[in-house]
């Protein structure tokens, strides 16, 4: 089978994120990195490949993003993907969930994967939904927040937490599965893998190459627009204690609790 892993370049966790007030969009300047949630999806693909319960011929990392996203894609390859596909086109900038899901689905169509894996969320957009959007376009069964995958008679036996406890769901391939970060501990790439990643094939595609209709992507065609950014209702700043002398710290905590009659 062929596994495609959707990955994304996000601002590094250490970079303060801000909205550009003139465009209403996230300012994507500064250091970038591979979305940490995506490393779990790559690891899940590698474990399926190494586990042997299904024969995995190829793991392909797929991203949509600006030219700079190549770095995140190379990192995904260094974690085990065999090759990479980058959908990059100025026309895609500012796409919302609808446009992004549609565009990714078009790229995936040309790859005809048996399994699409992705992380549970992106570190920047705080959106948990792209897998379900892609799945509907591809007409594949889909499940999000999966924390365990076993192969059973060519199907995936998936576990996840839902509203009422743990659910176990049997999913036929081809399918789109988003994995929770509890599913595994991603490996660190070896130096050899990092060097080797530069030599693996990377296929750059434009929107036209992928057969994407221009009027369905980009900021102007977004189905939802943000405006009027405001600060949330402020909560009064709490008291902060830096623990230097633990005896003293504990005394302060107890006094604080006692004042609020929490030690009655």
């Amino acid at each position, binding site marked *: 089978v062929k596994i495609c892993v959707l990955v994304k370049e996000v601002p590094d966790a250490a970079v303060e994120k*801000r*909205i550009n007030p003139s465009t209403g969009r*996230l300012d994507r300047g500064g250091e970038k990195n591979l979305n940490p949630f995506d490393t779990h999806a790559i690891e899940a693909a590698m474990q399926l490949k190494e586990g042997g319960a299904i024969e995995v011929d190829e793991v392909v990392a797929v991203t949509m993003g600006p030219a700079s996203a190549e770095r995140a894609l190379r990192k995904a390859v260094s974690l085990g993907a065999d090759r990479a596909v980058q959908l990059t086109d100025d026309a895609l900038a500012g796409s919302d*969930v*609808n446009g992004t899901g549609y565009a990714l689905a078009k790229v995936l169509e040309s790859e005809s994967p048996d399994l699409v894996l992705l992380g549970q969320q992106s570190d920047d957009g*705080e*959106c948990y*939904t*792209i897998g*379900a*959007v*892609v799945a*509907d376009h591809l*007409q*594949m*069964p*889909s499940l*999000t*927040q999966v924390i365990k995958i076993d192969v059973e008679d060519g199907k995936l036996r998936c576990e996840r*937490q*839902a*509203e*009422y*406890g*743990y*659910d*176990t*769901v*049997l*999913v*036929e391939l081809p*399918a789109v599965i988003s994995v929770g*970060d*509890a599913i595994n501990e991603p490996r660190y790439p070896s130096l050899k893998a990092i060097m080797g990643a530069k030599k693996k094939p990377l296929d750059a595609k434009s929107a036209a190459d992928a057969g994407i209709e221009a009027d369905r992507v980009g900021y102007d065609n*977004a*189905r*939802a*627009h*943000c*405006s*009027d*950014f*405001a*600060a*949330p209702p402020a909560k009064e700043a*709490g008291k*902060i*204690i*830096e*623990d230097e002398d*633990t*005896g003293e*710290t*504990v005394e302060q*905590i*107890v006094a604080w*609790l006692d004042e*609020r009659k*929490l*030690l009655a």
Partner: protein
Amino acid sequence: MSGILVYALHYDGAINKNSLGAVSEGARLASELGTECHAIMVGEGITDDLAGQLGNWGAAKVFRVEGPEGLAQPVVDAMAKVATDNDHDYLLFGGGLLGFEIGAGLAARLDAGVVMEVTEVVAQDGKLVAKRPILKDSQVADVHYRSKVGVIIGRLNAFEAKETGSGTAAVEDVQVEFAPHSLKATMVQRGEQRGADVNIEDADILVAGGRGLGNADGFKALEELAGALGGAVAATRAVVDAGWYPYAAQIGQTGKTVAPKLYLAAGISGAIQHKVGMQSSENIVAINKDSNAPIFEFSDLGVVGDLNKIVPKLTEAVKAKKSG
């Protein structure tokens, strides 16, 4: 007729609390728009009583669809059909995992704008505007829909369930032909409880542990502190998934929502998914070694330090104070 269609999740003969909140919110918004709020339920053998009671929360009509439970894609098929046949303009969800999945699937199916983690919805010029916190809740954006249909996915507990309706709603059965891919995921077991029973929803004092505890043994110190304070122990999703503590003690997006008098968070960073389950607590105390942890932004008392050093001493000090 245009209107609002709300998905009502149910399990084991009861409707989900967040869904009831969404129906109440849908009814409020529908009256502002001068239209009706309808609800939809998908499941096996849903009774007239179960579906009809949504009238108490403000649904004018309930569409009932026979189909598989606990999975999103059959509901996408059902809602796409009902919304298209009845010309609904807004599809509303009370949050939770299934709401996210169904809402996203509908966004693709109906080419509808979608906004998730919505904390407030307002009617403006005959349209709905969704307010959504962004960038780790540092700002709130107004989101306007630019599509025929708008999908609104509420944040957990954003919408309060209010019994404002006028009794039983009319129940209309709808036959839905499910898409082939929607039947390719099948539920093997739903709602399995793992680990011991812990009742955290009624506790006045909760001591909660997160990944910062380092390992499952870290919970022993928390149990002692909870014992000294006369409270119970709770946990984040991360540590429950890691098997350090039972699911019944989980707070947050997919766990329980609590509002005790005291919530003491040890080694918890304060991710949004956790925050939504505990932010209404009266007093929030956080112990974390990372001074940049988001939890310090919404705690009343923040202690920056090593919890392994602080918690045992705090337990002793609480015991001494109480016995003195």
